[in-house]
């Protein structure tokens, strides 16, 4: 069975925009951790998923991201992702997650797209 190997940190980047820093694996085993992180940013206008330290994502993890996206949409929150490797960027395209989760190269461009500004 998949081991729990995810560390998550939630931080407010600018007012109204929260970043979830993901370090490790996203698999069904980490559902509670991921959803708990989401609950910490339920009042954010936009959520940025930082995948720079993502080690591994399996198909069950894609299912978790779908659930996260649905919850964000229900609260009318934007969901952005950045820091994905080329491989996982392709997986987002293959599963068509990129239809609903905007993908960016880095936090600055994700923030800009989310209507936030580090200096603003």
């Amino acid at each position: 069975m998949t081991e729990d190997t995810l560390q998550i940190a939630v931080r407010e980047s600018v007012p109204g925009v929260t970043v979830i820093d993901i370090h490790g694996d996203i698999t069904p085993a980490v559902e509670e951790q991921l959803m708990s992180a989401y609950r910490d940013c339920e009042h954010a206008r936009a959520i940025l998923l930082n995948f720079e330290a993502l080690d591994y994502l399996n198909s069950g993890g894609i299912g978790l991201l779908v659930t996260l996206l649905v919850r964000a949409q229900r609260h009318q929150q934007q969901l952005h992702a950045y820091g994905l490797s080329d491989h996982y960027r392709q997986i987002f395209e293959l599963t068509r997650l990129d239809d609903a989760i905007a993908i960016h190269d880095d936090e600055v461009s994700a923030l800009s797209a989310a209507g936030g500004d580090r200096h603003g």
Partner: protein
Amino acid sequence: MGEAARKRRVEGQWASPTTSLHVHESVEGADPGAVEGRRLSGPLQGFGKLWQKTYRVHLEGVAVSPEQVVAVWKADYGSFWPATSRFCAPFSGVTPGEVALISDRRGGLQLSTGVLVLYADEVSFTFLCPQGHPFAGMITFSAHVDGGHTVAQVQAIIRAQDPLIELSMPFYTHRQEDRVWQHVLSTLAARFGAPDAQVSAEAVCVDRKRQWRRAGNVRHNAGWYALMRPFRRRTSPPDA
């Protein structure tokens, strides 16, 4: 873990990037034309409410590992299906990137569709649906240890692909879906010597909203495709 092993773990288990399906093999009883060129349709692309449906069977008293269960499941996938439907696995088996064809006879119509093998590892594999399949979404087959024995599981995260399928969900399609996966898991349990194992089913509505902008998916409906097949053959030969 070495770099090569890490790369294999991360990259070797997914299908290669593609936007549409291509069928390389002809299989008796299934119509490749119902799948060829169809776009993939994940849980975000369908029309109806989003459901997470989970079916489990506990293989109590059976000395078998999750890896052994999934190996047999992948190797003989089609044999676990109900007799009313036919799953034509690709010759190379349940391997990421392969396309499997499915045929089903309903109301005098021969319905054909397929799935892409999106992901596969030692303890799980996942199918992704294309346009024309009754559902948009992913279905993951897995096994894990719980309470000292192996549990086989099917988990679907799916929406009805179009308004016609959504209309049929409450009184037909949900029950049909339940019957298929309960049969698959019962047959799998029987293969491992647990013919009386009970299959549990759980359905959670993840998103109650219908995606009306996807209503046009109905033009890919497998029933519509089957109805139009004779007309299509007269006007556009397969090799045209």
